[in-house]
């Protein structure tokens, strides 16, 4: 065996050796794994958007398509025409539009 072959064999033999990982390094590698494997934290504004958009859309649809239902549930509001007293009061405050025709 030549000197060159002997060195090559020595290197090949040493290639099978191992070196234990220090505890701190092993822990750091596993912490990296846990961080990569965990799902990314959902942003608060994104959660609000996801929950809020359907609710807003439902409210808008209800207000436009079912106004009677909305007014029934909101007693402070009314679609009844004003009576004569209310008309007179409103005329005093805002004046009255006289139709020339």
């Amino acid at each position: 065996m030549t000197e060159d072959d002997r060195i090559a064999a020595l290197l090949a033999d040493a290639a099978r050796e191992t070196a234990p990982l220090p505890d701190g390094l092993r822990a750091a590698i596993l912490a990296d794994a846990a961080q990569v494997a965990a799902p990314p934290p959902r942003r608060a504004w994104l959660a609000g958007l996801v929950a809020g958009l359907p609710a807003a859309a439902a409210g808008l649809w209800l207000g436009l398509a079912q106004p009677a239902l909305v007014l029934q549930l909101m007693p402070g509001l009314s679609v009844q025409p004003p009576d004569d007293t209310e008309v007179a009061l409103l005329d005093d405050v805002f004046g009255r539009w006289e139709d020339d025709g």
Partner: protein
Amino acid sequence: MDDDARTLARMADGDPTAAAALVDRLGPRLMAFVLRLTGGDRAAAEDIVQETFLRLWKKAGDWDPGGAAQVSTWLGRVAANLAIDRARKAGRETPLDDAVDPADPAPGALERLVAGERRTALDAALARLPDRQRQAVVLRHMEGYSNPDIAAMMGCGVEAVESLTARAKRALAKMLNPEEV
């Protein structure tokens, strides 16, 4: 699919024990390899091993279980590239033309070798090599990469790899057995 690829797939599926299994199975071998590439620089070796595994974790979900690459081979190649890049950025490399053979070793290297401290003597000798000689000889004779592969990793030609490897072996022979060379 080999065992390592299966374990990596489990890791990608969220199995918390899979990463530990891979680290325990592949880490010690990788650490020894990187320690030799860095000439025994333990801090650098630990950084490289951690970064190598981090890249594996990030790739776990996309790993092709039917692909040709084995996980251990992939780790070795990534670690080798990181070690070579790190040495290059650190500016510790000596250009090939200026590379000098290391000085004669301290007396007793052969005795330590004969006395069973072959690993220590070999590691000490490897650490004394210029970076590029050490990288070339470790990749060629310890990891079994082909010269074209090493040339690609080191960013040089195949002839340069052959020259680096030959010079490294001559230098190692001189350091490990000074009386016969």
